[in-house]
């Protein structure tokens, strides 16, 4: 066995609470990110991503508290993304127990931030998140995929594959790649985008955006050549568990860590 694909549930957190409906029947508090994280851990999630989408600046510290509590309750790796603009922002999260920080718009605005975080804390905790869209007919980029920032609203004119390669060179230890065309559609990953980036970089790539069925997760690895797959809604609404996802992936020939590991 060599490559083992990771399944990573993603939680959008606004002012310390999970948003996007979460619908587990037996949760005491469906809005508590740490309670949900524990549930995914029990189901066999390999890692977790908490994405801070807090808009108001006075509620920004709530994500630090989420990281601190998650570190007390969850014994698998977790990443915090959203709103990290400086090395100090990253340090605060890592110090309270986050394993990785993910940077997106801030890395486009100031690419040296990738190098700074990587040098300070190691490449393993420096995830660069890339939101990409297929180019229209006007001003296409080289690969046909363009980087967008600010949650997919702002064009950059930067080629997505070129940026991924550059991010790796700057010190990124992992790429979190989201297709903004597919995000929320449930039509499956953008396989062409995922495969283009995965083949271009030497660091692991997490595919994101568009998962609607468990088969999509397997396709992200078998066809998209991703090292990990990220999904939110198919897990949140209780449609599928992480364990079911892994069973489908294994049946499709993808190596995964089985959810029923020993001492559970």
């Amino acid at each position, binding site marked *: 066995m060599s490559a083992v694909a990771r399944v990573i549930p993603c939680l959008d957190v606004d002012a310390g609470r999970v948003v996007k409906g979460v619908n587990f029947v037996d949760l005491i508090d469906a809005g508590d990110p740490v309670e949900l994280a524990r549930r995914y851990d029990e189901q066999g999630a390999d890692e977790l991503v908490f994405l801070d989408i807090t808009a108001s600046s006075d509620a920004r510290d709530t994500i630090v508290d989420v990281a601190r509590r998650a570190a007390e309750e969850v014994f698998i790796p977790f990443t915090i993304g959203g709103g990290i603009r400086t090395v100090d922002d990253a340090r605060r999260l890592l110090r309270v127990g986050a394993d990785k920080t993910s940077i997106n718009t801030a890395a486009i605005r100031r690419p040296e931030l990738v190098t700074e975080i990587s040098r300070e804390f190691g490449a393993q*905790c420096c995830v660069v998140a890339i939101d990409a869209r297929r180019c229209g007919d006007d001003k296409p980029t080289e690969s046909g995929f363009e980087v967008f920032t600010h949650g997919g609203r702002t064009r950059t004119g930067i080629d997505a594959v070129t940026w991924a390669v550059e991010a790796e060179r700057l010190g990124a230890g992992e790429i979190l790649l989201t297709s903004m065309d597919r995000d929320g559609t449930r039509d499956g990953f953008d396989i062409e985008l995922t495969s283009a980036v995965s083949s271009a970089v030497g*660091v692991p790539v997490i595919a994101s955006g568009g998962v609607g069925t468990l088969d999509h997760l397997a396709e992200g690895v078998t066809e998209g050549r991703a090292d990990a797959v990220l999904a939110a809604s198919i897990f949140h609404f209780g449609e599928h568990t992480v364990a079911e996802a892994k069973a489908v992936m294994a049946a499709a020939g993808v190596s995964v860590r089985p959810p029923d*590991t020993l*001492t559970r």
Partner: protein
Amino acid sequence: MIAILDYGIGNLRSAEKTLERVGAAPVLTRDADVVAAADGVVLPGVGNFGRVMQAIRDAGVDALAHAAVEADTPFLGICVGMQALYDSSDEVPGVPGLGILSGHIQRLPDGVKRPQMQWNQLSFRRDCALFDDVHEGAWVYFVHGYAPEMSDDVVATCSYGAEVVAAAQHGNVFATQFHPEKSGPTGLRIVGNFVEQCRPDRGEAR
């Protein structure tokens, strides 16, 4: 009390929380008296070997580690904290490690993604107290681009492009290339097994 050597970098919080979860009393410290009084010592580490060694030396943690090992206090190095125990690393040639374990840290094989950032299965080479009640093929979480070369101290490996060292033991010095503090229930068991080695009443038995 278990001393977690604090040299200013690394995710110390995870090691601390994991030790608490298995019933130990961890203390983050670089105080020689605290370390000398500890029943066990943990050296965590993430990131670049050169930066970690620099920080270890700047904080005086190198002397604390040597003293703990000389006193035969059970010692656990994790990830780059394991690598720091060896002589040297491909990652930063010329920077000496602590030299507590013999050998060199080498780059992971070609043909696989570096870093290895995933769960992988343990394959045991010989018995080790860390793995009491942990079965062959148990899954643990790795994040690393380098690993120690094979030696007689190696107690477990994983398969990643080639056979890659996952854990080593020399006397009371234990080391894991994977992160037990991030390896779910299996990891808690492994940390618990280390804590078991640190019980003061085991001193007579040793």
